[in-house]
């Protein structure tokens, strides 16, 4: 399945990123941005599908992950750095404008790309994480305080804390706890409990992933660790600060948002699905389509790979005026 995926290292923005690639280089470029805690491998189905439907697919291991460089401190993991990494990739391929799809933190990078460099994005598909208006008076760490210490984001802040908690489990178990989660609350652990201990591993694997595939992730994280990936969370306040120029900004890029109705943060009345179907989201992303996939959880491009692949393809094709 991924036998024809080429992997190579590309220098961008002063660092080396490991990039998976498939498809004809003459075709329009699709950039796939993974989330936490993943690698380009999360896109394996879409890489095959999109490359066999007329696209040149490029999927990096993001800064801090797997075989890419991992600068040591969180100050090097702001969205400005991540966007610069991506721009460097597009420059490397000589792509003036790319189709972009991002999941989880990859979606945040995609949104940021639409702020910083709308001139380089033809269309954007966001999986799981919508664009939220920036509150000029409330920085992320203050917002998270209201969820208490049990919130995973809060637990990820202190350098070393989550790393130590994760290290109590082997990497395969850690990956299973994340990838196989069916929790749709906001991931708040009970008092005096680390989230990694609170996440459960189901007794059987679901049909959309194999033990070998999970091992692929485990091997990568065993080698590269979790500090790089956790640094994204540690830069959230810094991101809020530097996104001030886009206060009140409306995303002008044609966008499709896709999420499972059982994704993280969808429990209860004020979940993500309610937000993305509402007026506020539409007002700041006016050129928007929303797709909610029934029974889908967080790692949706793996769990519902065919559906997500089709949704991405039809969206990008539509922007190219191609119909099935």
């Amino acid at each position, binding site marked *: 399945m991924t036998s024809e995926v080429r992997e190579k290292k590309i220098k961008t*923005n*002063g660092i080396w990123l490991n990039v998976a690639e498939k498809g004809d280089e003459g075709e329009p470029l699709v950039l796939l941005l993974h989330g936490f805690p993943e690698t380009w491998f999360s896109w394996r189905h879409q890489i095959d599908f999109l490359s066999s439907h007329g696209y040149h697919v490029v999927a990096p291991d993001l800064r801090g992950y797997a075989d890419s460089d991992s*600068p*040591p*401190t969180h*100050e*090097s993991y*702001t969205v*400005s*750095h991540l*966007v*610069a990494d991506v*721009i*460097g990739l597009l*420059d490397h391929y000589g792509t003036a404008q790319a189709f972009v799809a991002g999941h989880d933190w990859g979606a945040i990078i995609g949104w940021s790309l639409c702020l*910083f*460099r709308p*001139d380089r994005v033809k269309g954007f598909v966001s999986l799981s994480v919508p664009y939220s208006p920036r509150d*000029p008076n409330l920085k992320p760490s203050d917002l998270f305080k209201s969820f208490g210490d049990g919130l995973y984001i809060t637990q990820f802040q202190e350098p070393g804390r989550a790393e130590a908690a994760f290290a109590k489990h082997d990497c395969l178990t850690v990956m299973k706890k994340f990838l196989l989660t069916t929790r749709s609350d906001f991931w708040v652990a009970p008092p005096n409990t680390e989230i990694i201990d609170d996440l459960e591993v189901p007794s059987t694997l679901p049909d959309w992933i194999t033990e070998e595939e999970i091992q692929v992730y485990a091997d990568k994280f065993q080698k590269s660790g979790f500090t790089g990936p956790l640094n994204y969370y540690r830069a959230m306040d*810094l991101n809020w*600060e*530097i*996104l*001030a*120029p*886009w*206060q*009140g*900004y409306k995303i002008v890029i044609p966008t499709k948002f896709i999420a499972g109705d059982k994704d993280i943060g969808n429990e209860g009345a004020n979940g993500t699905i309610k937000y993305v179907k509402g007026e506020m989201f539409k007002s700041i992303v006016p050129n928007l389509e929303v797709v909610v996939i029934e029974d889908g959880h967080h790692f949706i491009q793996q769990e519902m790979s065919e559906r997500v692949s089709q949704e991405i393809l039809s969206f990008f094709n539509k922007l190219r005026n191609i119909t099935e």
Partner: protein
Amino acid sequence: MNRFVKVNGINMHFAEKTPSFTDNGASRPPPVILFLHGFPELWYTWRHQMVALSSLGYRTIAPDLRGYGDTEAPESADAYTSLHVVGDLIGLIDAVVGDREKVFVVGHDWGAIIAWHLCLLRPDRVKALVNMSVVFEPWNLKRKPISMFKSFYGDDYYICRFQVSQEWGFYILQEYGEIEAEFAKVGTERVLLEMLTYRNTGPILLPKGKSYDDPVSLPSWLTEYDVKYYVSKYEKSGFTGPVNYYRNMDRVTINFCFARCRTWEMMGAFSNAQVKVPVKFIIGDKDLTYHIPGTKKYIHEGRFKSHVPLLDKVVVIKGVGHFLHEERPDEISKHIHDYFLTF
């Protein structure tokens, strides 16, 4: 009119001068010009343009930028990246003009750099730009500005002297403050006079232990009153805020263990980006910036235009130095009005 507004977490002071008449009684609001001052100045540097242009029907707004004058000055150099300053300006325009409104922008010196970055980050808010003194240089990973200045002019070059002064081997110790301490010894008034009256086309060098005893004579365009105004504000707010802008020009890492997030880092997202706003650029032929190696060629032989494709006009004014809008206020006001009239 002096006003204050809370934007982007700081209290910002700005001066405003509105037109004294309405435009033919038409109900549309007057066009707005946002003026961005440089170093070591204040909103006050634009006093002549604000009078002239408001009488021609513009609403003129000139803030003290973050760190300057009566605007708040956060302590850390980390808070002086272009993204912070542009964030302030977007907040200012939103609050004072309207959150869907575009403005004309006029920039000089550091204000010109901020104006370039405002055009990169939020071209949707800028109708047209008149920029002065400092050209747009796209971000370049290979070019480290401080090393470049060091190689041109040596360690005593003022921009080099503004940088971090101490790295103590393995210890993560960043000591800013050396230049501020030296300025304090020399005295605020003398420091300002040295900068504001600088007429040399060569680089500003600040060797340690340089004497500042020779009398300074004021040029015709700078009065005692003007100097008093600058001095009173700088004595109150100091030089750290203003100098912090320079401390963001380059990457800051110490021993690879400790990185700070500076403008240099964050503009990586704009590598190869062009400024896509209509621009008129004005510079004096006695301006020290005009004489930085490579600049004349850059301006006149096409590269400037390749990075600013909507660069409509470049004006080089003979016999005029760095503070051109104070030296030739009427001429500059006319240039501004003539250009903005076309939009």
